[in-house]
């Protein structure tokens, strides 16, 4: 028999925002994984040539003269877990109804996001490459730009959760947990981008 139940009274949602954030994060992770796979496919298909001394085979993927600022990239890699840690601290505080620390954790998350955006801009500035200069450059901007947008999304999430926290939403545990989950996702996604784009190049 088909079950067509009559409308029930409103139920307390069961961690609806956390579940939706988890699904959306998995979806966004597939976006990054897909883009990284495409990057690796083009990298593998790049033409090769012998080095001038004939001892090595060089893959013509990243053009000569481009240097990836590894310090800024590595600092970003370290900064993401800091953001996740702060988000988890906010979740821990929310569970214990500790409003000041909850708000502080969320605010720090936003600032960490700003730091990451700053580091990414520093990477762009130091590399000084044009978007239309070649296939490496185009794909570099596409994948890192997408990652940057996801970080900006995380910052917006932090800001909304922060204002809700400051506004006295003491029962916002679900939102703060979802926020922490999103920062864990950002950390994992950037780890993929870091390894594929900044390490493997």
């Amino acid at each position: 028999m088909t079950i067509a139940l009559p409308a029930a009274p409103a139920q307390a949602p069961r961690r609806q925002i956390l579940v939706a954030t988890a699904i959306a994060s998995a979806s966004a992770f597939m976006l990054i994984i897909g883009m990284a796979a495409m990057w690796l496919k083009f990298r593998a298909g790049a033409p090769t040539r012998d080095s001038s001394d004939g001892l090595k085979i060089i893959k013509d993927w990243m053009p000569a003269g481009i240097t990836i600022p590894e310090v800024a990239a590595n600092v970003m890699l370290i900064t993401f877990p800091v953001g996740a840690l702060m988000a988890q601290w906010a979740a821990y505080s929310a569970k214990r109804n500790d409003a000041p620390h909850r708000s502080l954790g969320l605010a720090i998350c936003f600032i960490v996001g700003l730091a990451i955006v700053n580091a990414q801009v520093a990477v762009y500035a130091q590399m000084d490459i044009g978007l239309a200069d070649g296939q490496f450059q185009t794909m570099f901007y596409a994948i890192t730009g997408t990652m940057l947008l996801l970080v900006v999304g995380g910052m917006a999430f932090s800001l909304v959760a922060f204002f809700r926290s400051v506004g006295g939403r003491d029962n916002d545990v679900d939102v703060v947990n979802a926020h922490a989950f999103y920062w864990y996702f950002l950390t994992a996604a950037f780890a993929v981008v870091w390894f594929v784009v900044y390490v493997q190049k």
Partner: protein
Amino acid sequence: MTNIDTHVGASTHAQGAGSALVVSVGQWITSSDHKKIGRLFIGTSLLSALLAAVLGVLFGLERVSPAHMQIFNGDATPQLFSLYQFALVFGVLAPLFVGIAIAVVPTQLGARAVAFPRVAQFGFWAWLFGALMVDVSIIGNGGPGGGATDLVDLYLLGVALAAVGLLAGSLCVATSVLTARAPGMTLDRIPAFSWSALVGSIATLLSLPVMIGTIIYVYVDHTHAQLVFGGNKGINSFLGWSLSQPMTFVFVIMALGVLAEVAPVTARTEQPLRPIVLAGLAIISTAVLGAVTQSAHILDWAGTNTDKVKSVLLHSLFNGLPLLGILIVVLVSLMCLKVGTPRITASFALSLLGALMIIVGVLGNGLYNLKAASLDGTVFSEGTVLYLVYGGLLSALGALSHWAPLLWARAIDNTKLLGLALIGLLGTILASFPLYIAGFADQPANTVMGFDYDGPVALWNVLTGVGHALIVLTVLGFVALLIDALRNGASVSQEASA
């Protein structure tokens, strides 16, 4: 005391029926009622089905004499093919089932509304505007291979926006099933359609972002460098996979859920092998593997024995597993009829015929990926897509007739709908099967002229055109029956759909 009362009667007469219409339209546009959002998805998907089928008729007629053009001009043809494929997959198959799920799933779960109704509403409008952007760009010579560069950018944005809309709808459906069930309704107790909606939505949520990632690369390259992805001409080679198999398998999961739901009702019994049905529906979701890797894998019976085993295993993984899941669902659903006391219902006929057409499509795809068959680049693939999309459409019409009392508080005439099911079946077979035959005769895909082969070229293409015309008739007939039920039918309680 300030009195701000208005003269109700006077104002009502003054504003008249036009005002009521504006209010009604406004309510539909801004509504967060899950049934309204679902019906918006369903209605626009049926319109899209008409567009796709009319294009199919025109392509069939144009291919009758491939020596010269009669209806289209040369530049427009590849772009109209893109529109045709987009309308079939992203205009009909995917949104139709997302809409049905948004409308039906919350009621099956005993929830008051879908999770995040505003997100679902955003999903509909994003999908609709994305689809309209695709239409506008192709009309303005901006489709894949088109000459209007700015409109090609619009095309890419349109496809991405439509995908984002479908993702938003799928997110709401999956979250509803996971979090908004009535107390005591554990996941293994949810109705089969809700289970298929969960599996299908998650499969969509995991596969469509890969397409969006590709679009981001193509868009950035197209707007700035045009070095990597081949400019306007290269779009289909990077995005074409999202409009064909195995991506389409992901979108038919809910079609099988409809059969699993309707069969026990038809048999007037409970499904004795329910866990197996749920497992079968889950197995179909292995199609995600093929979708995200953008590969159906060709079976090449060459090389060493190890090569052969490797090739067979991969082919089975990408093509065989979804087929296995579909066969399990269909066979176990049919076993219900043996256990119970079945009666013929149009909803069952439509969902069963739809599922059978989907099986033919999946089998065809397996055949298409045999290297020995040499079908690559032929119209065989178009036949496969048509079997899947029109099979899905038949299942969706079955679902709509089954849940009509729930959605519109009316029952649709069973006898007339049975006749329509037969027309739909004939239309699906005629639209698709001649393309299978023409594929073996090496009729090239995505072109309407410049080909010839031994055999009745005109016959196969006329039959295809007739098939599409019958699909137009089926959709229009269904809408007519629904309108008739709404205008003249007696009100039916929601429980009547049980």
